């Protein structure tokens, strides 16, 4: 959602802004967390879960309806 004009002259700073560093740290923590979860339970997530052959229903608990379809 960028605007059509660049705003007033911004502060000239040659170092990486603090908010970018913070975003980088958060992204790194999330990636590490995801890898740890993946290693702890390999079948729980990953590309295989996103395909029908990956047995996505492995963790499901079915609610059975009273009437069966013909």
């Amino acid at each position, binding site marked *: *959602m*960028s*605007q*059509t*004009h*660049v*705003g007033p002259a*911004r*502060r000239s*700073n*040659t170092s*990486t*802004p603090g*908010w*970018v560093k913070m*975003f980088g740290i958060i992204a790194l923590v999330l990636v590490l967390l995801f890898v740890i979860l993946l290693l702890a339970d390999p079948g729980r997530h990953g*590309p295989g*879960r*996103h*395909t*029908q052959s990956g047995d*996505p*229903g492995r*963790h*499901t*608990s*079915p*609610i*059975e*309806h*009273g*009437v*069966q*379809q013909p």
Partner: protein
Amino acid sequence: MTMTPSLRKFVLTAHVASSVGWLGAVVAYLALAVAALTIQDAQTVRAAWIAMELTGWFVIVPLSLASLLIGLVQSLSTPWGLFRHYWVLVKFLLTVFATIILLLHMPTVSYFAGIAAETNSANLGGLGGELLHAGGGLLVLLVTTTLSVYKPPGMTPYGRRKQDEQRTMS
């Protein structure tokens, strides 16, 4: 690549509409998942899976692709650029990430929706994953919206180099 001011306004409007529409559709999707989890009635769960699949493929996916592509065109045709300002770059990376996760996840939604449509049983297990994916997606979209509004300062090394080149030429 440059655009006339009126064309820029039009593209900006299209980008805001698709981005905000994407955010709203994810909120609606999240409401369906929460309703199915809390009510836990077989009919509701089945209806929720079918509605989530339709919302996903026919609303969320088109809006995400529109938002990404229009944003890309817009950034490359305005002084902001795509790689010059950190906020534009971070927003672009987050949008690409969210779109990839969405496209990877939608076949799973279709799988559960297919079960719900063809049988009289409904799966509750996959709904936890829906909360996680939709909740994460909503968080990412809120961050990109905030970046768009606040435009936090900071130029990339590439942006600074380009700026210096322009100053030298003028």
